[in-house]
């Protein structure tokens, strides 16, 4: 747990503080979208396509409609004519996506018909009575096949399955490859997994006919959600009111739910009744459209005898499934840290986003960075192995040094600050690295498979949109603001208001801590609310590890305005110049004669009631908003694709000790240490919690979780019986070692941490597994490194005569 007092010298920031949110959750008083019960509410169940690719010949729904309690049956033809297609993140306007398929189905599980009934059970009964006649069509599951000319097309109108392709060359890459002493090439594969929150998607819509406003309660985490929803419904933005005060039961990127919400919105307006859709787990896994990156990396690296890396080339082919959304942009974020934490002067990056007949991909924690970190760290370990050099020595040689910050990488982004060597050393010390090496070697002598993995990875944070114009020149978005409103009421109580939903990040705690810090008032008395979208200031939602930076900065900015106003009121009433007064604990006093003062209550009373005592040009009432653009944001990419991507760069190093049971292939993570530097931590317990959770996600992605598809295009892991989420027995005890290199760009020196743990975890686990496999002359560069995959490799290696890995 966090220290009682702030290690940074702040009053509240960094000190142990219970969260605002936890009490309602431990007492069963959270309010999630599924808890919203509206009078006369109707329920939706879905008829999904059993085919990965087919033409819908006919839909027969008379029998379903005749079932008592069934209110409506909606098919794609009606819906697609009445709403606009969902937003596509890249320039692919003909890749149209609607909540229900119309004409063609493009993946097994795609929604075809929505049945509305008085209860969910009746709706599900009616689903069984609907007959859809399909004409099966050829399908694709292999992304490499899909990218080839002449492949079966997922969207024939688009003319190709490729959504995005570009080769970026930053620096003298070819020259570096020519001149380097060594070159290596290998393929790494990141399997399709996702963060899979325990709450599925839920959306409730109600048409307020009197005011002509559509009210929405949905489990979402998404930038520009209300605007996109209004556009798709052909409504004005001010006709949609998204209630951000519902608790979201986990997201970690995936809770976009636009198609879910569009569907219930249309139905609520059509039927003039509140409509709820609550995904069951099967619907969520196959048709929730929340699968994560599914990537093939072809890595090439050029380096010298001494271990200095001169250049690398990263080719990334990402299978986004049947529709686009924002998923192709997950190849974009890695541009922000394309050389990792290393001094690599020349980089080539060739991302390709391709469609197949699979469940669509959505944003997943890290937005494509964790797979890239995994591929980069596998590269680093292979270089070390090739040179016979210690992996830590190789990293230390190539890591950017503390004194080199701010450090500009070849792709145009400047890293704000860092002290990678120190964090690495602290983590190694905490892990007793030498002791681990002895333990590993003893285990090996005893005939066991044991390995140590170390990763050094970056977490780009402060979520910006730079990949949008980078990947789509028609999109000139350079604004990616967030905001906060702080209000002091007549009785002197402070309220912070923000405008997005929360899914466990602790935004109420964040805002109250920051506002308390600035106003020098106890955060426990500061109320924080999430306004609805018609009442809220602009937000780009908690994506890209941005809220400590962006909402924290906005809350501080608003609170400072309040403090400035109180200072002016105090100075005016004390008859002093502004320079002669001091603010402390909410009071304003004469700096030279502190007994001459106005208390908080007096100042507030003047602001609210006593206009005659107000200084000129100050608004009465006491509230202030602060909207700020993401630091370093606001510029478009250059022609050659150089761009300042994210503002802040957190660093993490993971040290993992693994032993693999050679007979079952089961890996056990016996020691796990994370060294973490995300600058100033506003609430250390929250940061640590996210980091532990990120590691758990990393353990899942690295070892267990996969949305596997059969050759026939069927999802094989659509339940928790076969999509394996790590339990408390698979996730090891984790030790976190903190370090603080403040960011020069943020209000208190904070950086982002929402993706911590996940960004370095799979990389380190892969390095540990490969260290364990090395003595038997085999290797793996594919996630998940399942028991079966490891068992197969071990078996094959043992069947062969002994030889050292040539890679």
């Amino acid at each position: 747990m966090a220290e009682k007092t702030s290690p940074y010298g702040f009053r509240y920031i960094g000190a142990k503080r219970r969260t605002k949110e936890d009490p309602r959750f431990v007492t069963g008083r959270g309010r999630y979208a599924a808890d919203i019960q509206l009078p006369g509410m109707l329920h939706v169940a879905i008829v999904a396509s059993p085919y990965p690719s087919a033409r819908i010949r006919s839909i027969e729904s008379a029998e379903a409609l005749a079932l008592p309690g069934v209110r409506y049956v909606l098919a794609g033809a009606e819906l697609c004519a009445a709403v606009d297609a969902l937003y596509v993140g890249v320039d692919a306007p003909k890749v149209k996506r609607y909540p229900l398929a119309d004409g063609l189905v493009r993946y097994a599980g795609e929604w075809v018909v929505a049945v509305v009934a008085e209860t969910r059970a009746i709706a599900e009964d009616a689903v069984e009575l609907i007959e859809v006649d399909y004409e099966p069509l050829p399908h694709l599951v292999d992304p490499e096949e899909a990218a080839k000319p002449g492949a079966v097309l997922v969207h024939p109108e688009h003319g190709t399955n490729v959504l995005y392709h570009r080769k970026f060359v930053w620096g003298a890459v070819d020259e570096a490859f020519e001149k380097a002493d060594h070159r290596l090439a290998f393929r790494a594969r990141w399997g399709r997994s996702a963060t899979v929150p325990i709450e599925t998607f839920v959306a409730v819509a109600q048409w307020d006919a009197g005011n002509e406003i559509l009210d929405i309660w949905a489990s979402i985490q998404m930038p520009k959600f209300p605007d996109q929803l209004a556009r798709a419904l052909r409504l004005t933005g001010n006709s949609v009111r998204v209630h951000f005060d519902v608790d979201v039961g986990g997201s970690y990127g995936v809770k976009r739910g636009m198609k879910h919400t569009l569907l219930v919105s249309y139905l609520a307006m059509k039927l003039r009744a509140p409509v709820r859709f609550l995904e069951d787990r099967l619907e969520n896994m196959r048709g929730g459209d929340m699968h994560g990156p599914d990537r093939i990396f072809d890595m090439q690296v050029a380096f010298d005898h001494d271990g200095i890396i001169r250049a690398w080339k990263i080719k990334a082919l990402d299978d986004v499934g049947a529709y686009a959304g924002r998923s192709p942009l997950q190849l974009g974020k890695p541009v922000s840290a394309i050389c990792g934490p290393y001094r690599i002067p020349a980089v080539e990056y060739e991302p390709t986003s391709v469609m197949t007949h699979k469940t669509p991909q959505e944003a997943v924690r890290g937005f494509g960075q964790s797979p890239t970190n995994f591929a980069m760290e596998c590269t680093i370990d292979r270089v070390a192995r090739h040179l016979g050099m210690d992996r830590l020595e190789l990293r230390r040689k190539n890591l950017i040094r503390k004194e080199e910050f701010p450090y500009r990488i070849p792709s145009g982004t400047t890293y704000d600050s860092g002290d990678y060597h120190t964090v690495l050393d602290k983590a190694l010390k905490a892990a007793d690295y030498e002791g681990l090496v002895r333990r590993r070697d003893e285990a090996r002598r005893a005939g066991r498979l044991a390995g140590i993995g170390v990763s050094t990875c970056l977490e780009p944070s402060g979520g910006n949109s730079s990949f949008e114009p980078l990947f789509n020149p028609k999109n000139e978005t350079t604004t990616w603001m967030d905001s906060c409103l702080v209000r002091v009421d007549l009785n002197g109580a402070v309220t912070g208001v923000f405008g997005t939903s929360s899914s466990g990040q602790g935004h109420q705690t964040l805002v109250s801590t920051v506002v308390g810090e600035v106003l020098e008032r106890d955060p426990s008395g500061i109320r924080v609310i999430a306004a609805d979208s018609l009442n809220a200031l602009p937000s780009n939602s908690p994506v890209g590890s941005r809220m400590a930076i962006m909402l924290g900065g906005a809350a501080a900015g608003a609170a400072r305005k309040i403090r400035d106003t109180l200072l002016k009121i105090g100075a005016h009433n004390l008859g002093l110049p502004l320079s002669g007064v001091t603010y402390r604990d909410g009071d304003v006093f004469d700096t030279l004669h502190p007994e001459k003062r106005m208390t908080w209550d007096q100042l507030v009373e003047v602001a609210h009631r006593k206009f005659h005592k107000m200084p000129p040009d100050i608004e009465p009432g006491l509230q202030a908003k602060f909207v700020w653009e993401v630091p370093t944001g606001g510029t478009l990419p250059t022609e050659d694709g150089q761009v300042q991507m994210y503002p802040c760069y957190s660093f993490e190093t993971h040290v993992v000790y693994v032993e693999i049971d050679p007979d079952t292939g089961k890996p056990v993570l016996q020691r796990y240490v994370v060294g973490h530097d995300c600058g100033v931590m506003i609430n250390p317990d929250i940061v640590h919690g996210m980091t532990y959770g990120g590691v758990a996600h990393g353990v899942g992605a690295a070892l267990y979780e996969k949305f596997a598809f059969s050759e026939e295009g069927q999802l094989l892991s659509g339940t928790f019986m076969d999509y394996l989420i790590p339990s408390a027995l698979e996730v090891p005890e984790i030790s976190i070692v903190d370090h603080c290199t403040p960011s020069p760009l943020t209000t208190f020196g904070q950086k982002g941490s929402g993706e911590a743990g996940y960004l370095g975890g799979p990389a380190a686990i892969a390095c540990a597994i490969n260290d364990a496999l090395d003595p038997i002359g085999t290797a793996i560069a594919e996630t998940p490194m399942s028991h079966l995959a490891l068992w197969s490799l071990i078996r094959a290696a043992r069947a062969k005569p002994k030889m050292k890995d040539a890679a």
Partner: protein
Amino acid sequence: MNEPKSSVCITVNGVEHRCEVPTRLSLVDFLRETLRLTGTHVGCEHGICGACSVILDGDPVRSCLMFAVQADGHSITTVEGLANADGSMSVLQDSFCETHGLQCGYCTPGMLVATHSLLKTNPNPSAGEIRDAISGNLCRCTGYQQIVDAVQLAARRVAAGNGNR
């Protein structure tokens, strides 16, 4: 519609409920939709995630895998019933707040039910025993660590006799 219904008498958090329920109504839907006790959550509806855990006659069970009619004549405690008689948080609930043993809160009721039951039979569990007890409850936020910390803290506080708050 003429759905088959059955009469049940189920005691939930000390309150007896006598009513007619559709025979096919799951226990979790009965708790959430009929009684409006929405603290119990639904995560997978196939018995893996544990979010719907409730205490049935003293033992944790999956309320998604039971029908309401199967609970006829039984006594159930949900997360809403874990607080002290005066409505204040139990030691365990308070300890979850102290260690931040949750984030989004969705799995939390199940975790509380599982660990409340654990502490009843094993007042001083090791970290391994706690992990074992919550191994049937999936959490995607915490990596379980601060949950284990919370349960250990609660056990220490009860043992020290200062837990009754």
